[in-house]
């Protein structure tokens, strides 16, 4: 018995909410990155769910693309975090506010 898309969308919505709240309330930059992954994967779930519903494989291909892009994004993001830590000896985003006006 196939899972109806509505359920998938609800899971996706929960996942997105958890990711968004994580981005907004956590100070640790690594956890923020992890939360962004959650948001992206919530989007992937949506793509796959609609792909199955509409019998169109483009959605699933798009999901694979997104995972590849996310991998690249994490690589760059972690490099930035590493550089930040080396220079400022911290991973808390609140302590990095040199752009303050």
């Amino acid at each position, binding site marked *: 018995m196939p899972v109806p898309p509505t359920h998938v969308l609800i899971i996706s919505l929960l996942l997105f909410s958890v990711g*968004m709240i994580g981005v*907004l*309330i956590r100070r640790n930059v690594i956890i923020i990155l992890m939360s962004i992954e959650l948001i992206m994967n919530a989007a992937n779930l949506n793509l796959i769910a609609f792909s199955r519903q509409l019998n169109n494989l483009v959605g699933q291909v798009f999901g694979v693309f997104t995972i590849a892009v996310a991998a690249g994004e994490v690589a760059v993001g972690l490099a930035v975090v590493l550089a930040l830590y080396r220079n400022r000896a911290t991973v808390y985003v*609140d302590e*990095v*506010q040199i*752009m303050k*006006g």
Partner: protein
Amino acid sequence: MLRLLWLIPLLPFMGFALNGLLGARVLPRRAVGLIACGTVLLSFLVSLGAVLSLGSLPETAEGLLIDHDARRVTQTLYTWMPLGEGADGRSIGVDWAYVLDPLSAVMLMVVTGVGFLIHVYSVGYMGHEPRPAYARFFSYLNLFMGMMLTLVLGASLPVVFVGWEGVGLCSYLLIGFYYDRMFDEKTGMSCADAGRKAFIVNRIGDMGFLLGMLLLFSLTGTMDIQGVLDQAGTLGPMVCTVAGLLLFVGACGKSAQIPLYVWLPDAMAGPTPVSALIHAATMVTAGVYVLCRMAPMYVLAPGALLVVAVVGAATALLAASMGLAQTDIKKVLAYSTVSQLGYMVLAVGVGAFSAAIFHLLTHAFFKALLFLGAGSVIHALSGEQDITKMGGLRSRLPWTHLTFLVATLAIAGIPPLAGFFSKDEILWKAFVRHPAFWVVGVAGAFMTAFYMTRLYILTFRGMERFGEEARHHLHESPPSMTVPLVALAVLSAVGGWVGIPAVISLGLPNVFEHWLAPVLPAAAAHETSGYAATAAHAAGPLEIGLMALSVGVALAGILLGWLLYEKRPELPERVAAGARGLYLLVYNKYFVDEIYGKVVLAPYYGLCRASAWLDRWVVDGAVNGAGYLTLGSSYTSRGFDEWIVDGLVNLTGNMVRGFSAALRVVQSGLVRSYATVMVLGIFILVSVYLLTMG
């Protein structure tokens, strides 16, 4: 030698430059004296050569304008003041030109000859001065010689005027030579004051000279003396009289005539050689010289000549009487000089120009000698000038005594010494003009003989009245001083022989008059009038009679002096006590200085104070008012600038700053707050979209 005419004034100027620039520091003392005397000696030699060749003039000479009839040589050096062309196409201008004629020749010999002797004398007299003062003295003295020679040789009135002012300047500088010393304790006059007095009184005369010169220029269009004289006949007697009187005002200042004589007695503040050179022999005779230079014009102005004669006679008499009671050896001589200058001016006034120049010549000899003798006495007595503190110097200063005696007899008019011939010629010519002049002149001659005898006896005879200290230092002067004395004594003795009048020289003509004849008009216009003609007609015996009479008067004066001061020394005080009022009047020189002080100086000082008040309160007030006005408007302007203009600018800035402060809060630098805003924004946009689309 004629072509070296330009060198005559230049040589002393070179001496002035050398001594003035290098004398005080570089040149040794001997060199200073040598340069000063040497330049004047060279000048004398050149003058002598030029004057000798005046007797046999060449037909032509390069650069010289020769007038054989007038025996006049003019050397034009360059055009000094080119003034363009006149209405008739002739070029107007003033040349720097020198003229040598028999008149300037006489002056030239007097100035350079006597000047040289006095320079030599000064080497000894000023020997005790420190070197800077010594060099300063000789540079001034040389400057004076140059200026005097410019005056004498000047062919045009401006050139003469340059010399005229130049000698005035030197006179001022040399009177004030001891500028840090007191001259007259009684009136508190310093030597510098005396110099100033001389300068200022002379300025009054100079003004007259200048006005006369400009008057003549405006009417004749030329400044050249000969040019003016050539046109004098066309000017008319009125112009000649006015111009003559104006020039005479100048002569009054320079030659110390009433009413401008007051500076000369105070000029004695200068060193004694200066008194001898400037204030006896040369400069003060410049006025007489200029009068004689302009003689052809004066002949056309009988009115002016009458004024000249009266002033001269009055000066001769009054100055002689002022000399009677003076106790300062130099002041006696100063009043004597004023008096003798009065004789010269009287001679000019009666038209006896050559007699004036003749007296100028002999006076230069014996008056220079008297001053130098007085200087020798002062030098020997370490600066004492009061004749009441002298006496008995006859044996102590034999050379000074002997030469002084010669000069005393010469000025008193004892034949055959120089003064006799010149003074008698003046007296005779005065008698021909009017006997009143003769009476005044003879009275003056009597007083001259008296005060000179008094001076001689008080100085050289009788008891020694100076202190032990002075006796200790007493010494006859060095040869550099006694040699000029002897030379001048010889000249004073024989100098008059060049002008022995025809009436007693057994028919030989009067050499001096003959020499000057080409320049000076022999007879003034009035000699053709009735009275003078008869007087001239009966000349021979009358002239000899008057001559004998004047010699008798001179002898009487000497005898009276001898009686009062040698025989009965107690008498003068009793005479003074007996005629106390008269004595005080004469002793105080008729209070002329005091009267001038009250009548001229006091109103003048008042005017000065009023001007000063006006200057301080009105002129300065206006200036300060303008200043305060500017200051006030500046303050207003500053307020406007600071509060309005700057206020607007600052307001703009502050506004920007205020808005920026409000907006800056948004730029927190906190990544999470940016994210929150972004999420909220998306939420709102999505909500709006859904609500409007729904």
